[in-house]
């Protein structure tokens, strides 16, 4: 009981003194202040109730409005945001959060521990990643600025979970937390407040003038840190046509693009009015396989698929040329990256070996359905290319391209599909829990639980020692390749872009509209 781990507090205290000398209302600030910035994104947000959705279109907007107890820093590691920090007991069962004082909601109310408790409890019911609240036994509020979370069993992924932007565990006022999914009034503590939502047109946000900055930090850092808003308002427009978005950036109608098409970025390389920011890696491109139905239930057949695929062709076409051929189920350079495990089985493009494996599997020309959706163009392209490659080794492929809800609905069933294309963006960024979780638990994506993966997942989610958890992720990756559970095609990159007069912009998981301004 002597060893206590403290996250955040020490570092925060050190920084606080350093930042006292840096007042925000200097002359430079006054000069930069003002202006309405226009962002364009492809899709419209399915929800402005941050907790309920994992959609990027919502995240781009919601993380300007809402904040979380812990956020992620620039490198993707958890950092305190609405919390001052957390004390975790040595047995890993008690999390004691001290809250930042005087934080204001957009409705003028001051945030207290009651709001936090209600928000966390709501997350367990409606949250997109609600499973992170499953180990929670009870949440108590000893005083207005302290929240204590008691767990039933150790769960080292808890802080990673509540700090994740996947479906953010946003802190909202207690009186909103009683409402069902998507029924809340859009009220958070973030630097922007919700203005209006015009479906198929735009969302408008305005600067929250009573925003309480996190003075524990000196500058913006990932989704947290000290956020300073210069713009008066942000308009996020929904524009389905890529060409129209690019043209809008060229003509100056739009200032920021969530993603600029790669060919367009190449064309605009020399355009002095446009700045492009490449983000690599942004996501995994994957091919999931259904183990509940033959022939993909047969590991030999899955290995044949693994051996046949030419990842360079798949990635070059599906990403328009912005990709990286990496085998890892975590990003290189992050804490849980498992090194070269499985690399010898990645991107073999060995047709002879694939055919031999196919024979060995006893494949008798059964129809194999490759499921893709037309709503995400890289999903569709991946499916088309993979289908052609599998045809080339003699698989009787049926390519099914439908819209997103149909594809998604199909893949949740045990029959009717064999391979399914999916880009995983936020999960690898989150760390190992989401990625491993995708293939384990009650309803793994492959529909049949794999003992090796389950064991790795159990070790990952309960081990208090980081070394054990890293070993678990290595086990996971080994199993993924050895059993050809699913196929990682490669890493996808994207290009964010702004007009040249958007100063101090830094690309990130969302286009952050704080700490940048019109020059």
């Amino acid at each position: 009981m002597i060893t206590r781990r403290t996250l955040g507090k020490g570092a925060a205290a050190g920084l606080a003194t350093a930042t006292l000398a840096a007042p925000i209302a200097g002359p430079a600030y006054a000069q930069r202040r003002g202006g309405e910035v226009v962002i364009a994104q492809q899709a419209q947000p399915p929800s402005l109730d941050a907790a309920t959705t994992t959609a990027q279109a919502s995240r781009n907007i919601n993380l300007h409005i809402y904040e979380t107890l812990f956020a992620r820093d620039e490198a993707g590691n958890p950092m305190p945001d609405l919390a001052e920090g957390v004390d975790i007991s040595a047995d890993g069962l008690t999390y004691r959060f001290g809250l930042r004082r005087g934080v204001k909601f957009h409705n003028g109310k001051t945030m207290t521990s009651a709001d936090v408790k209600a928000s966390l409890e709501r997350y367990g019911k409606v949250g997109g990643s609600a499973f992170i609240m499953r180990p929670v036994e009870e949440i108590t509020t000893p005083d207005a600025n302290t929240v204590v979370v008691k767990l039933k069993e150790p769960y080292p992924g808890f802080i990673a979970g509540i700090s994740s932007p996947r479906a953010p565990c946003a802190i909202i006022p207690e009186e909103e937390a009683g409402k069902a999914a998507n029924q809340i009034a859009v009220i958070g503590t973030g630097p922007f407040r919700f203005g209006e939502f015009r479906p198929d047109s735009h969302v408008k946000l305005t600067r929250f003038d009573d925003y309480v900055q996190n003075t524990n930090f000196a500058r913006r850092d990932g989704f947290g840190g000290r956020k300073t808003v210069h713009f008066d308002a942000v308009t996020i427009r929904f524009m389905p046509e890529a060409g129209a978005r690019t043209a809008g950036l060229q003509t100056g109608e739009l200032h920021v693009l969530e993603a600029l098409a790669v060919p367009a970025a190449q064309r605009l390389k020399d355009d002095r009015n446009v700045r492009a920011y490449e983000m690599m890696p942004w996501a995994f491109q994957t091919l999931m396989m259904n183990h509940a139905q033959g022939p993909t239930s047969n590991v030999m057949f899955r290995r044949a698929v693994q051996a046949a695929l030419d990842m360079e062709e798949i990635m070059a076409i599906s990403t328009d040329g912005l990709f990286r051929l990496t085998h890892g189920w975590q990003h290189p350079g992050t804490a849980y990256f498992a090194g070269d495990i499985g690399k010898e089985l990645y991107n073999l493009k060995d047709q002879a070996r694939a055919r031999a494996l196919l024979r060995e599997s006893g494949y008798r020309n059964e129809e194999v359905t490759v499921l893709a959706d037309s709503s995400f163009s890289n999903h569709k392209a991946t499916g088309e290319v993979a289908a052609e490659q599998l045809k080339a080794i003699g698989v009787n492929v049926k390519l099914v391209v439908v819209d997103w809800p149909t594809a998604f609905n199909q893949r949740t069933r045990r029959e009717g599909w064999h391979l399914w294309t999916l880009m995983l963006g936020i999960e690898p960024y989150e760390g190992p829990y989401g990625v491993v979780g995708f293939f384990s638990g009650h309803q793994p994506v492959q529909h049949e639980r794999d003992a090796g993966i389950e064991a790795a997942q159990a070790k990952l989610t309960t081990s208090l020692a980081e070394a054990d958890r890293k070993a678990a992720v290595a086990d996971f990756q080994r199993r993924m390749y050895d059993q050809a559970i699913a196929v990682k095609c490669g890493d996808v990159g994207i290009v964010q872009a702004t007009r040249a007069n958007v100063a101090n912009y830094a690309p990130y998981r969302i286009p952050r509209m704080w700490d940048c301004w019109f020059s």
Partner: protein
Amino acid sequence: MLRYTLGRLASAIPVLFVVSLVSFAIIALVPGDMASEMAGPSATAEELQRLRVQLGLDKPILQRMLEWYGALLRGDLGESVLLRRSVTEAILERLPVTLGLTFLALFFSIIFGVLAGMVAAVRPNSWTDQGVMALALIGLSLPDFWLGLVFIWAFAVQLGWLPTGGYVPFGENPIGWLRSMAMPATALALTQMGLLARMTRASMLDVLRQDYVRTARAKGLPGWVVVFRHAGANVLVPIITVAGVSVGILLGGAVVIEQVFSLPGVGRLIIGAIQRRDYPVIQGGLLLTATIFVLVNLAVDLLYAAVDPRVRYGK
């Protein structure tokens, strides 16, 4: 007249009932539901199921149908959870966009179509006539959404004259509205322009063969004067007929054009609702579109009676 109008309105009720059945059939057939849109691309099967129960999507379709008809009798088209507003509100805020686009396109096609038809008819079988009519025929053979893409490429990007998409409300900035509508309305109008040009030419030729026009010509009046003074009015009736049909076609074409130009109109609302499986919006949207269709057809018939003294309704 009033009786005729009321009769027509009453006969619309069974039509609209069929429409509502069709929209339920579509919903019953289409796989997947709103939860998969809301949960986002990487949601797990478990997350999906939880949302589904919360949104009440696990109710059987018959129950939803009865509830919907019940609410409809109270004038309530339901709520869209995804759009955060009532279906009525969602449609009403889109209507000005679609109607603006449709009627601007109609305006363009009448002005240019009728003009082209008249020019062609003044000297039948001349080079001008054949040229204009060939253009008209080509115009009505082009896919309108494709033309929209070409326009964006040419006028917005290469020349930089017009915005690439998006909507500026008329009340906010009339010039901006016209700029945002110019390309979509033209792309949409081209087909109907061709149609109206052909129609105008045909009826002009009919009229010009009539005796009184021949007399006027024989008196030595110049061709243009004859065309405008004598033929103009008599050509109006068939043009209104065609224009009436055109409104319907333009409303349909607007569905795709709104996609191409990112216009937040009713067509994009309904297509989006189908893609997102937003059931109340699909039902309400289709019902309302059909109602507008019926009303437009009625209006055309009434206008027809007003212009042509030979047509009398409902004695």
